[in-house]
């Protein structure tokens, strides 16, 4: 039933009548020329900065898989030779600017496979590596089970003697992983091992989790730095993971020129997935690791914008109707 009393008249407001003040840009060559030019120049500037920065970063990568093109550690390819230690020699002709980061790299390793670790339902995230003969595995799950276990020791050859380069394993994991996300079970009688009582080590591990780093008792259990680094799922099948930093002593400013030997405990099999292992020395800049791409991309895009502004100028000159005034 109609309401007789009130009027049905619509409100004459700018909103109701769709007359709100509006900015109505008409995209046309005239207005975008300065925009393109500015953006182009800015991009070229950024591109140059990125490129130069990236150029200054040194990266030394050595494949030590032992098969294919790689010559290092071929003696350890046979899985039966365990444990196997091999050596990788390299020389630096100039100072390798510090701080130097030592990474290990795996390729064709799909840590991001669904079900392997990430994005798996929590309830079953550990299966089938949850129990070993009805005893809980700690840490459980396939990621932990397949933890990378090659170890590296770096020596500088000074006058034919091997001088150990101290590798710093502290703080290589994310601060949040170490301090918030992962927690060791409360120690029982001051012993971490007792805390893990009733659990067994993962099937592939040689040592239990509370005994990962014999040199540093604090670096054990779930808070082992290497374990934490491994547990952070890599985004792509070819990835690096930080192994150590060289920050101490005389090497704090970098690796001086000279000959070096990297001694590798070759444990981790990669043959079953046709993967490759490598070890990488790199230093960083404000923009992280070496990355030529971003600089080039900026340069190309910037130039493209400048070209576009020129094109637009031509278009503007040719097609601009006289009655337009901007």
């Amino acid at each position, binding site marked *: 039933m109609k309401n007789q009393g009130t009027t049905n008249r619509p409100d004459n407001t700018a909103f109701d009548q769709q007359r709100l003040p509006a900015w109505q840009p008409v995209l046309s060559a005239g207005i975008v020329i300065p925009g393109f030019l500015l953006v182009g120049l800015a991009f070229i500037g950024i591109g140059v900065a990125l490129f130069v920065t990236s150029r200054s970063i040194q990266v030394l990568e050595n494949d030590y898989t032992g098969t294919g093109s790689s010559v290092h550690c071929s003696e350890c390819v046979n899985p039966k030779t365990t444990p196997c230690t091999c050596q990788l020699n390299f020389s630096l002709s100039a100072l390798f600017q510090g701080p130097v980061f030592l990474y290990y790299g795996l390729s064709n390793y799909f840590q991001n496979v669904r079900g392997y670790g990430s994005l798996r339902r929590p309830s079953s995230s550990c299966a089938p590596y949850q129990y070993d003969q009805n005893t809980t595995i700690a840490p459980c799950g396939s990621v932990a089970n397949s933890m990378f276990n090659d170890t590296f020791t770096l020596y500088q050859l000074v006058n034919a003697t091997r001088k150990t380069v101290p590798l710093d394993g502290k703080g290589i994991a994310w601060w949040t992983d170490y301090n918030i996300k992962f927690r060791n079970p409360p120690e029982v009688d001051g012993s971490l091992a007792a805390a893990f009582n009733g659990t067994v080590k993962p099937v592939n591990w040689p040592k239990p989790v509370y005994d990962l780093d014999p040199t540093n008792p604090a670096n054990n259990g779930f808070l082992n730095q290497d374990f934490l680094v491994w547990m952070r799922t890599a985004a*792509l099948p070819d990835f690096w993971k930080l192994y150590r930093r060289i920050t101490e002593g005389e090497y704090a400013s970098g690796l001086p020129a000279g000959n070096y030997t990297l001694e590798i405990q070759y444990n981790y099999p990669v043959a079953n*997935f046709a993967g490759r292992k490598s070890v990488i020395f790199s230093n960083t800049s404000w923009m992280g690791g070496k990355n030529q791409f971003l600089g080039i991309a900026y340069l190309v895009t910037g130039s493209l914008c400048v070209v576009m502004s020129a094109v637009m100028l031509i278009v503007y000159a040719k097609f601009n109707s006289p009655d337009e005034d901007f």
Partner: protein
Amino acid sequence: MGSLEVWSLIKQGWRRKPEQEDKVRRLISNLPYEDLRRKYQPNRQYANNSIKTTKYTVWSFIPMNLFEQFHRFANVYFVVIAMLNFVPIVNAFEPGVALIPICVILILTAIKDAWEDFRRYQADKQLNNMPCSIYSRKEKDFVSKCWKDVRVGDFVKVVCNEVIPADILLLHSSDPNGVCHIETANLDGETNLKQRQIVRGFAAPDGSFQPEYFSSIIYCEKPSNNLNRFKGYLDKPDKKKIGFGKENLLLRGCTVRNTDEAAGIVVYAGHETKAMLNNKGPRYKRSKLERKVNTDVLFCVALLFIMCLIGALGYFIWLETFPDIPPFVPPDSNNNYISPALSGFYMFFTMVILLQVLIPISLYVSIELIKVGQIFFITNDIDLYDEETDSRIQCRALNITEDLGQIKYIFSDKTGTLTENKMVFRRCSVMGIEYCHRENGDHCNGSASFMDFFLALAICNTVVVSTAMLPRQFRFPNFGGNPDKHNENIQCLNSQLRCRLQSLLKRMGSLSHIVNSFQSIPEKSSKSRSSLKDVKEEEAEDYSDSGSNNPSRRNSSASHHSEEERGTVSDPNGLCYEAESPDEAALVYAAKAYGFTLLARAPDRVTVRLPQGAVLSFEVLDTLAFDSTRKRMSVVVRHPITREVVIYTKGADSAIMELLDCHGRSNKRKKIASKTQRHLDLYASAGLRTLCIAKKVLSEQAYDDWASIRQEAESTIDNREELLMETAVHLETNLTLLGATGIEDRLQDDVPATIAALREAGIQVWVLTGDKNETAVNIAYSCRLFNQGDMVFTLNTDSRSILDCTLGEVRRYTAPSQSWSFQSIVGAVMPTESTGPTFGLVIEGRTLSMVFEAHLQMKLLELARHCRSVLCCRVTPLQKSAVVKLVRNKLKVMTLSIGDGANDVNMIQTADIGIGISGQEGMQAVMASDFAITHFKHLKKLLLVHGHWCYSRLAKMVIYFFYKNVMYVNLLFWYQFYCGFSGTAMIDYWLMIFFNLFFTSTPPIMFGIMDRDISAETLLGLPELYKTGQNSEFYKRATFWIVMLDAFYQSLVCFFIPYWTYQGSDIDIFTFGTPMNTVSLFTILLHLAIEIKSWTAIHWGFMVGSVLLYFIVALIFSAICINCNPPSNPYWIMENQMADPVFYLVCIITTVVALLPRYIIRVLQGTLALSPLVQARKLDRLSTEARDQQIKNWKSQRSPSEVPTNLVSPVDSFSNSFEQSFYNSSLEREMPDMQWDSNEETQNTFSKGHRRSISTMTV
């Protein structure tokens, strides 16, 4: 009543239950059973009066609403996907999370439904608790109760100005004549009063009403929604049957007027009342755009299928590449490895879940929300608001707003749609004399005929007289003049008549700004001139009140309106006439203007005051109501002086002329008839509506015979209509022609301009009318449907073969036009107005049915396509819808029907969009329509502005939505190549779900509701901009694929720039995904920003808000989500990223590269300005004056011949042409035997100019 009797009645009631299947409803009074339980109530099986229009109850809401929602395909799809998440083998991520989107969508829809239902519930509650008076046997009086307590069989009393609670059979009225007036505005929008009578034999002599003594059984028909049909009879205890019909029924929702109180027995209650049965909810249609969307959704499904297939195959191949099982390929929980082929098969479903967003499910919800917003703006448009009726545009169909922007054909009714349906008496012909013609000179000897003629005008109608004393909302302040004053001046009836006619006509002419032919006639006798002055004063008022007393009268201009309000106020006699059809009112007012004032009308008596002041009271013996088959009505009266039984008949000329008493004595009558016919033709060609008035004197004996037959017919219940009709036809024979009237139906405001604009917009306007050929053609000229220079073909034949050849023949004439219409398809701009002659086609209903019978539809359409306009006259409602269907189905175009009457309902329902005009002819058209407007001119803004906006907004939004989903999902897809096709997402699933649900959902909705590509002023100034919508230019098949390509390109950019940036580093999965997510957010939003054409504060708010929301949510989420997605989880990743400069560098370059192509193309489009839309947008930036100037230039460029300088006011040209044609034809044709329709051959009338030269081609 004894208890025994009660008992027998109870038994009766008990036994009656199975009768429900019968065709009739049987009911008895409830009073004897008053306090019995419901079980013993006699009428218990009928619905009671409480209404419930809600769909749900509190308890049934959740199951029913869910059930309804799952009827939608889209929702079912979503639920199946959600279920799939729970299948363990599919390895989905977090099944609970996957339910969130579908739940949000379901909840949103449910809230909307619940709110709507709650509003209905409140309205119902209010209605149900309205007070009313029901008779109680205990109290021996009417007691106050609520509407919901009314039951069938109750006696209900209604007092003046009260709303009737149920359908009540009228048994008592305080009116001594046993009538009751009701206003049916609530029901059908008609504001005139309708008279209802009490059932015969129930008029209590002492005016009291005692329901206790009502012991009859009522038989009536089952509830139906036909407002105009109701019949039944009362079975009295003494076995006498009394028939009753719709004139005895008070309808629920109507208001009692002019009657102190009325009472009756309830026959239908609640949902079974006619009002409720007519009240159907909004209709659901599927728009053209939505149909297209559905096909494109299927394309998306195909795309999804392909992508999932690639994923499945990829997984299979990937697994096969490994020499041994690698450590990262997980076994199932039982430590078994399943075969690669089977894993691949499972992976297909995992992929479906991962990529499900590709199917834009939320699109449907978004579209619905957008339409709600669009309808809000349409209904709030103040330009579409009508002051006088205080009504906005009504959007009855909620989901076809965008169809308004794609109309190619408009089918319009004429009367009431193009014209006001507000009749003004213009001319009359009495006894073969055209009234204002000079040669007619002296006509004193015709006085008796004049007397009869005007008496007939006054009497022969169903007009209800209401006076100032009666409670009606009109105010009548003091009027200075003495109503009888002018009577004193009168010496001779004839001379007075003559003067009055002249002054009246003159007055009318000047009032409607029509240069009346009258003024050009230099004759005026000195005598009439002298008496003219003082009479004129009176007439001015007489006339102006005659025009405006009709309460439904409308006028657009406010000043004009207020002037007429004064006219209402100054009614000298305090008389208001309320007629069922405006023609009748016009005739009564005309008669009154000549002194024949209708003073009162009762069912059995009609009182007329003659010009001399004498008051005659005619006894009305019978009224043979108007129907569309007979096309006439008659009133049988007994003359108070001569005691003769006289029949006055009024009707369409075709109906009357055949019934004239021609075989008989005088040649004179024949002559009069043919003269009158000639005048009628002239009236018709001047666009006047014609009516013939005839009379017949009946002998007492003949009447008695007839009356008894009539009586019999009335009391039958089966095929009563036919019997009544038969008796009527029987009586209406051998009539004596009194004269004819010409009534002008004025064009509505701005009709020519609206039609011109619509045509400029590329819309073909067809007019389908039931009117006769000449009237229709002239209206067509005056509303510029046909132009003066047009060639007009008139098809009018009965013969199939002739029609066939003619269609072919005529097409030859239009042949040159074929070339240009071809051009226009190719893309030359607007050649229609400038090149070659244009064509109009007039086709008659008879010919039309021949076309359909002979399967010549395609030929006709072929011809019609080359015509500027097509006019179909004398078509039935069914033919109207057949024509609409023909065009719609065969030409595959969007059609719109607009009409105001019940005869337009068919075509309104057939067309893609039906528009009802809530006018004088009731609300049936509005009830059937999708949109209801008040004036034809509103169509212009509705289509050109709102149609364009709604279409362009929705089309762009839909396209954008497709883009958005494909673009985002492809990111995930590209990642599959780097995760072994294992269905991993590099973005946390919460953020992924939020991305579609919150971060990017509101800007497109806001865009779909509010974006304004071109201002309303420019759209109205340049109607041709509408063509973009007609040709679906915003959403073509190509548009879809282009946007898909763009989505692929952008997703590639958004994936691979971050990929190459982070390639070969120690980046972890979510750190890798976060910049991608951010970049795609920027890209998706900025993509929309490129498409947004006008930025209001709201646009800025939504865009900036979305970005802020993203960052805030992502930051909070990263900060609190410590163990969401182990082992690698999103904890602190956003914070880390935002501290990294590379993140910003990646975001900037990726966004720029992704959007550069689209941006450049838009810039080039904007610069080259090839499309009229871009040009129009440039115009929008100018100041108002500059823009108007530019629009003028633009128009003159496009159509040099169509410069509106030589525009004659259509009304002027109308009257000139009337004049001209009048003289021309009166010179040319001597006594023409004009039977327009009976020609057996086809007339192809090539009419150049306004019938300046008429050449006839015979085939």
